[in-house]
């Protein structure tokens, strides 16, 4: 079933929408949650919440590309659950390492509370991604959006883990340089 048909099922308020999205994107959403949470049980909970949130969002929304829409909901729910559980124990799949790596990019900055600042930062990141070659961009997004492990990215991209790590390190430095030049960090 194509995505437009699935979205239409949501608009028709048909319960088959959940069945269809589970069948097509269940593993996809589960992988995202699992990368962040590192717990199958927590991931399952997040995926179920994703379906509910999607049900509540469509309508009124009508996403043109369904996977990022679902993935973003799963990711946000997973981050929320991560925050909740992280206060109690150490864990969280690949996320601690991913967060440490991203911390290097904006080391020393005091706050990201301003909505305007966050918006400008997002624009710079999107611009940075647009300037990357496709294969490098995939590596960056796999790591810092999907929180994929370096091993998984290496297999996906047919590279060595070492090469993936080097590429990520290089891209983090490039992003930091770009943010510095843009005056967003100092």
């Amino acid at each position, binding site marked *: *079933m194509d995505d437009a048909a699935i979205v239409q099922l949501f608009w028709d308020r048909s319960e088959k929408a959940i069945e269809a999205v589970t069948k097509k994107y269940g593993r996809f959403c589960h992988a995202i949650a699992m990368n962040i949470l590192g717990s199958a049980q927590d991931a399952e909970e997040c995926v179920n919440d994703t379906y509910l949130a999607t049900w509540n969002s469509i309508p009124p929304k009508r996403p043109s590309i369904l996977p990022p829409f679902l993935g973003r909901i799963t990711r946000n729910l997973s981050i929320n659950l991560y925050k909740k559980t992280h206060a109690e124990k150490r864990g969280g799949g690949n996320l601690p390492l991913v967060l440490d790596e991203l911390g290097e990019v904006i080391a020393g900055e005091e706050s990201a509370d301003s909505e305007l600042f966050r918006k400008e930062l997002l624009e710079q990141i999107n611009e940075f991604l647009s300037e990357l070659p496709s294969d490098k961009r995939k590596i960056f*997004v796999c790591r810092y959006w999907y929180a994929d492990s370096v091993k998984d990215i290496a297999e996906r991209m047919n590279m060595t883990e070492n090469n993936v790590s080097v590429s990520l390190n290089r891209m983090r430095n490039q992003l930091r340089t770009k943010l510095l030049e843009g005056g967003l960090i100092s």
Partner: protein
Amino acid sequence: MTGKDLFEIISDIDDNYINEAHEEDYSALDASSSKAPVSAASVKRAKLIRFVLPTVAGIAAIAIAVFGLWKAGIIGGKKDLIKQQCDSAIVVTGAIDPDPTTPATTMPMSTGDITTTTEGIEPHASAQCSTIADFIEPTGNETDTNGDPIVIIDTDVSSLVNLTVSYPPDVSFYEDGSSDVTELDVVLTNVGDHPLYYENEFTLCVKNENGDVVPVAAFVNEGENRLNCYVGPSESISIILDIHDTYSLDPGTYLLVVNVQYFDGEIGDIDSATLLEKYTIAGEFNI
């Protein structure tokens, strides 16, 4: 501000980038999805060949072996299998120190600060594919770390085989002039009508200031079954040569050299096949 804040901000990046990164996952789940179009000369598979850094002795061994192979008439131009050892180049492999931690003077470490970045440029593709038809006599000590010079004769074999070499486009150059090229992407295309076998070793040579070609490194796919090293007619194979991250290549003109053989017969039945032609081919590229 923490990594967690940045991770949350990244959550809102453009949908297309999110889609692009994992597209194959959910397209594979969609039963109605069709396969991607395949070009006539389809890329068969990607292989990874690790870089074996030659030590000073290793480089000298390459030079000796290359010279020895030339003297024995094993490499250069069309040859008859009966008079040659098909796996003669393995001699070179065995002579190279496989320890990748030993530095070589021709491959300086990339310790300088990045001063310029050439991100966004297109990967360089080689425009030449030539046979190595002859070598000149060594002019100096055969064990010199620079190796023996090789003369490339531009014999056109483009109607039979193409060898292109490229490297990732986001290469950075360091203050000492070295680069951080970590891999070379090689595409070997069989334009001929017969199965093409290639040997498990690629030799990287650099052209020095005098125009001499000096072997500096070898890429060896250890343990690879030779019978797997073939490219069918009108097919291509993509091979990734993995350069050790600790080392970098200086800017310059390089040649990637590999021995290939055409056989008449079924693919995978090389033992009963008849050798038609054998070439040592080289793809030239610049860093």
